[in-house]
């Protein structure tokens, strides 16, 4: 009894139990059971919901796959980029990278998608490109911010004790930058769940499909189905990624 209360109070203050990790995915799964969402939305009288083809779970998986792939590519591109431009004597390069990456955010997503279609054709490819361009912003800027925030005296000590540049990066800089970097990854992923719905207009599939169909058929219930599911997906991913960010530093 005593020991359990001790562990409970010893949990880092301010860090509540991440109940979202269970609640949001559970709600998402519940809504994916055939018939559950139509029944829930029926009292609102917003429109007819017939059987979904392809089924909602499939659209959700497509959506998730697209976002996961984009996040993967964003990590592969963004982290090395942030590392490369934060090495000593690369201030000019760093500013250039921040400007370019920031540009990705100022250009509307839809414009990026539209511009990518002539080059990549319709389908998931232009959507993926849009998600990558858009998702790079928080990862690169947070990566840079995290690496620049590393205590200069810790780096001086690391160098003075004989760490090579690579050892300083792996043992000191990246671990210390990780919380800020992970926050960027989380933002990037959550944004992209929303952004990916736009891809349905280009035939990428995913949870944008019921939204687009609902709009063209003036069926608000259908729009809500897509919106609710992508919101639950975003909340689930946010909660899951939140597990990785250490908040006690």
């Amino acid at each position, binding site marked *: 009894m005593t020991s359990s209360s001790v562990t409970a109070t010893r949990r880092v203050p301010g860090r509540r139990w991440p109940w979202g990790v269970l609640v949001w995915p559970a709600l998402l799964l519940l809504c994916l059971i055939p018939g559950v969402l139509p029944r829930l939305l029926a009292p609102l009288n917003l429109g007819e919901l017939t059987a979904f083809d392809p089924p909602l779970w499939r659209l959700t998986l497509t959506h998730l796959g697209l976002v996961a792939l984009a996040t993967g590519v964003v990590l592969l591109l963004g982290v090395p980029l942030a590392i490369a431009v934060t090495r000593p004597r690369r201030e000019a390069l760093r500013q250039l990278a921040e400007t370019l990456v920031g540009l990705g955010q100022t250009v509307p997503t839809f414009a990026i998608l539209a511009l990518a279609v002539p080059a990549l054709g319709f389908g998931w490819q232009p959507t993926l490109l849009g998600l990558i361009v858009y998702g790079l912003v928080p990862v690169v800027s947070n990566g840079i911010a995290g690496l620049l925030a590393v*205590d*200069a*005296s*810790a*780096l*001086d*000590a*690391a*160098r*003075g*004790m*004989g*760490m*090579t540049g690579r*050892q300083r990066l792996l*043992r*000191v800089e990246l*671990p*210390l930058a990780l919380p800020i970097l992970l926050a960027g990854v989380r933002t990037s992923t959550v944004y992209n769940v929303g952004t990916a719905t736009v891809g349905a207009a280009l035939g990428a599939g995913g949870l944008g499909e019921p939204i687009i169909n609902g709009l063209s058929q003036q069926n608000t219930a259908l729009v809500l189905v897509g919106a609710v599911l992508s919101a639950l997906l975003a909340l689930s991913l946010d909660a899951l990624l939140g597990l990785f960010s250490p908040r006690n*530093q």
Partner: protein
Amino acid sequence: MIELQALQKRYGETYAVRDLNLVFAEGVLTALLGPSGCGKTTTLRMINRLIEPTGGRVLLRGEDTHSLKPETLRRGIGYVIQQIGLFPHLNVAQNVATVPDLLGRPARDTARRVDELLDLVGLNPDEYRHKKPAELSGGQAQRVGVARALAADPPVLLMDEPFGALDPLARDKLQDAFREIQRGLKKTVIMVTHDIDEALRLADRIALMNAGELAQFGTPDDLIHRPASSFVRQFLGEDAALRQLAGRRAADFVRPGDPAGLPTVEAHLNARSALGIMLREGSDALAVTEEGQVTGVLHWRDLQTVPRLSAEFIPDERG
């Protein structure tokens, strides 16, 4: 042990360090003393090549440090800085183990070594091993900093204002602790400081620098009693001899003798206080007592020459 030959660092037209020739003898603690901007930190950082000289050489045991890889060189030299620079994401034990890990020493040996070192710097291993740097006071953190620098048992220790960021109380305690450690380990220590008291208290030798050049190199006694220039005299101040006494205990000056009728002084008091008692009592000798027992006599004339930490390196010129 370490020899600087015509060492020079130039930034454009200005010299940070100019034509510096110095020998740091093995087992001796040398203070690089001087006003800010005199080039003492630059000199220190050229020894482990954190700054590359623009001229001259640094010899470590007769070997030009330029022929070594900088990382290899640095792993063989302990490094302590004012800002301490502990790694905030690692615990105390992991911080101390940094260099042994870099050298690929077996984890079990390193763990034992970490405990030894925490003991040495006055931190109970069981209590501190798993603490994060954020949980430590400034003094405790710098104790860990010193333990970390000693972890791979380097023969040479570079210290850049190691106690400069601590409050006076913690500084005094850590200086005492470090003096004891150095008494036992006899490392070749080069310590940058702008604090004259610190230099007088800890150093066997002082290299006083001014505007990138060496103003005087010698024992604290040399600098106090035989200043080479008016700069040296001014920098140390007219009360340098008193400051030097403040860093020594009355017990350090005790010699056998007849204590009858003499005023007494506690052995743990510093020698400046002893001098104060002499002036007050109008006596040129004191009976030194420890826990009520007289241990000997302290004479005024002995206060004129201050015994050093490593007496064997100091030529006795005063007779």
